[in-house]
């Protein structure tokens, strides 16, 4: 395999693995920016993956080629609704946000597998018939080097992921809504004094993170695994949290980190076919995202600071 061929193989695959991480990590950015820690992203992805596969299997004949999009929309809606558990517990009932997130993870997995067994009478669904396919972007694919690298084997969901990242950046940094969102995450009392409804902002942020987490799960299941079982989402949600932190709670940073982690995942899976790294044990690449995140937090790779009020419920009148 020549160096170019290798790149043409690795880069599209890295983007494929990064796509679900991008959606979910951006969801995490919304939630944490508003001051609500969301450890439950893994559970939300699991629910999204299940809903995506279920809708795809059951309604493929009704919607035809549009099935994948209907499935993703359904996963977003159910993901958003499911995240309300976390929102109600951690915002209104002042539960410990980490504990509530852990409960979301347990609940998401348990409910999804329970439903699979109830509906299909077995632990694993069938393989979907309509999956998200690659396509080539006209004209752009003809560009030398960049064409085969980026535009010949594109998933529409990957384009959507980039759009969501840029859109999230715009919303969080360029709109009044985004300013309020950041304000309730940094200093909720000040925001409250200025007439911002802290709890409402946090509810919205958590539901956005639920919807994006659900979307991430549905994308993962429909592009990579093509079915659903208890092991479909195994750590993707936690890796998205890592991407969010490594990206320093910034949408574009999260995008970059997700792409990098996607690359690490690709190399750990396909590493033994790739020259130069075939002798590197896969375990190094598998643990790379997590180790790097710890380094980033420790300040070895630029200091990553969480939003100030992150993790604390806002109680009116309490200093």
């Amino acid at each position, binding site marked *: 395999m020549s160096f170019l061929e290798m790149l043409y193989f690795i880069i599209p695959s890295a983007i494929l693995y990064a796509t679900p991480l991008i959606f979910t990590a951006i969801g995490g950015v919304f939630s944490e920016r508003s001051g609500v820690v969301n450890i439950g992203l893994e559970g939300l992805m699991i629910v999204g993956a299940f809903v995506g596969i279920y809708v795809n299997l059951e309604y493929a004949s009704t919607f035809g080629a549009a099935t994948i999009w209907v499935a993703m929309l359904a996963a977003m809606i159910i993901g958003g609704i499911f995240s309300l*558990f976390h929102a109600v517990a951690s915002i209104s*009932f002042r539960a410990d946000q980490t504990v509530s997130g*852990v409960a979301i993870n347990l*609940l998401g997995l*348990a409910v999804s597998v*329970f439903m699979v067994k109830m509906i299909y009478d077995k632990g694993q669904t069938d393989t979907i018939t309509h999956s998200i396919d690659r396509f080539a972007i006209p004209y752009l694919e003809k560009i030398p080097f960049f064409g085969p690298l980026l535009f010949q084997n594109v998933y529409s969901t990957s384009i959507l992921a980039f759009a969501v990242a840029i859109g999230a950046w715009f919303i969080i940094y360029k709109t009044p809504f985004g300013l309020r969102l950041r304000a309730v995450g940094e200093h909720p009392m000040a925001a409250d004094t200025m007439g911002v409804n802290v709890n409402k902002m946090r509810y919205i942020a958590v539901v956005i993170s639920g919807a994006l987490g659900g979307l991430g799960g549905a994308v993962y299941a429909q592009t990579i695994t093509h079915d659903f079982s208890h092991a479909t989402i195994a750590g993707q949600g936690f890796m998205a949290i890592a991407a969010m932190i490594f990206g320093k709670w910034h949408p574009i940073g999260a995008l970059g980190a997700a792409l990098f982690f996607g690359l690490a995942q690709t190399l750990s899976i396909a590493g033994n076919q790739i020259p130069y790294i075939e002798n590197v044990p896969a375990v190094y690449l598998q643990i790379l995202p997590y180790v790097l995140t710890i380094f980033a937090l*420790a300040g070895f790779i630029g200091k990553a600071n969480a939003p100030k009020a992150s993790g604390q419920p806002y109680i009116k009148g309490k200093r």
Partner: protein
Amino acid sequence: MSNRVINILVPIISIIIGLIVGAIVMAVSGYDPVLGYSALWTGIFGDSYSIGNTIRQITPYLLAGLAVAFAFRTGLFNIGVEGQLILGWLAAAWVGYAFDLPKIIHLPLALLAAAAAGAFWAFIAGFLKAKFKVHEVIATIMLNYTALYIANAVIKKLSDGSFKTERIHESASLRSPFLRELTDNSSLHYGIIVALLMVVFMWFILEKTTRGYELKAVGFNKHAADYAGMNVNKNIILAMTISGMFAGLGGAMEALGTFGNASIKPGFTGIGFDGIAVALLGANTPLGVVFGASLFGSLKYGALNMPNAAGIPEEIVSIIIALIIFFVASGYIIRVGLQKLSKKKEGQ
């Protein structure tokens, strides 16, 4: 109503609501809740075999619960019990088969190795927190996956490409023919004694030693502890290390008692995360952990009987456990409800 009564009522109410919601979920899904719960009951207490296996299931839950509870008491959230447990599991299994020693040395050595492995892994998180202010929740989550992948790679290496290590030698085993016979050939082992000793150990450190007093003080208010001349950073590291030691021993229960080896895992065991539920339900006290571990361990093992006896997926029990965590964590709202209720009664 006194605070003490409310503190006991919150978990009990949470369990009851959890079980009721579980019944509703079963009914809505077209299953028979009565049949389901009776299958669960038989799965736990049905015969001496079930009871033996239930106690075996409770054993690692006790230690995982202690690990989370101990860290909580010192103001730390150890969500990394899972990773520490996996490494303890591996260390115990390795010492168990790699050495040939008399039982009186071999078994303690294997337990010690597991405790050391878990303690070391948690120490990293404690060190990062003390030295670099890295939040222990994130650090331990990241360390969980690191531990999982490292353990899998090491097991592959140790077993020359196979998926599990050699069997541990009899001299390192916690298994007991006596307990087996007593419980109709269940896999009950002596680990339960180790776990209960650790419960006493945690109570002793926290309640009877100066060090324990300092650890709790740092947990209550680290600024005040600092002002009183306590070394906060040292206590943070020590607390995480002890917490990890409990978790590592939890892994040893699986390696030396239940399975007799360490195998490659596609994902987490779940014991570490359930440990959070155990600690939470037990209000982070040693006695509370015994209660929490008994409940969740029993539910988990009893659930295995549900698909056969009632045709209900065993995941219903995980749903119930997750709901109980939600309710206990949302204790604030239950407290408010209870206080309103008691005020109304006084007003009458």
